[in-house]
């Protein structure tokens, strides 16, 4: 069964460093998302992406964040200068059509900022 994959599973970085989190969505899906979950808190929406552009972003998704689909399979989230409060589990998700359908999530990347 097709699934969303994410790499790395765990990333440790120093404050101020840039990180890139990678995702491979399900191949015939058209809509892509990033969510994050700070330990013990709710899963929060960051950004949605369709047709090679951002369709929606939350207030969390400031200028330090960017997303890209560099080729036909990968979907990346870049944090330019990490802060301690960026430590969280980051989930990539994809859906076949609009979000009015099931969103399938990857296993997540645990980001730890020291």
């Amino acid at each position: 069964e097709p699934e969303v994959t994410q790499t790395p599973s765990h990333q440790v970085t120093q404050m101020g460093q840039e990180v890139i989190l990678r995702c491979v969505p399900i191949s015939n899906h058209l809509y892509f998302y990033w969510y994050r979950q700070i330990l013990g808190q709710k899963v929060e929406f960051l950004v949605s992406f369709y047709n090679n552009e951002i369709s929606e972003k939350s207030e969390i998704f400031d200028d330090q964040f960017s997303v890209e689909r560099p080729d036909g399979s990968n979907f990346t989230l870049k944090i330019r200068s990490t802060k301690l409060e960026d430590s969280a589990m980051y989930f990539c998700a994809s859906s076949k059509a609009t979000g009015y359908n099931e969103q399938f999530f990857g296993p997540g990347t645990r980001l730890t900022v020291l």
Partner: protein
Amino acid sequence: SQQGEEDPQALSIQEGENATMNCSYKTSINNLQWYRQNSGRGLVHLILIRSNEREKHSGRLRVTLDTSKKSSSLLITASRAADTASYFCATFRVQGAQKLVFGQGTRLTINP
């Protein structure tokens, strides 16, 4: 306002019993989805129920939706130890942002 609030926050039952978790929300929705998360792991999609549906089944799962009360319930019948996980409801609004809004989750523990 909070969207997708589950209760109880934690539920502990014996294996074989049924587990019921509830979710309330505040705005009009297009659909409501339930997810499971094992400790520190990813989110597994369980079931989606649309606003024009009242009940849906999938294996041992039964989901109901009451749009007049803006609430949903997830019933797991004949629970197993492997059902131990956190369960989240997530709503997709009728209009506005194309995103899922998650609740805080219910931590379910099945005791053998």
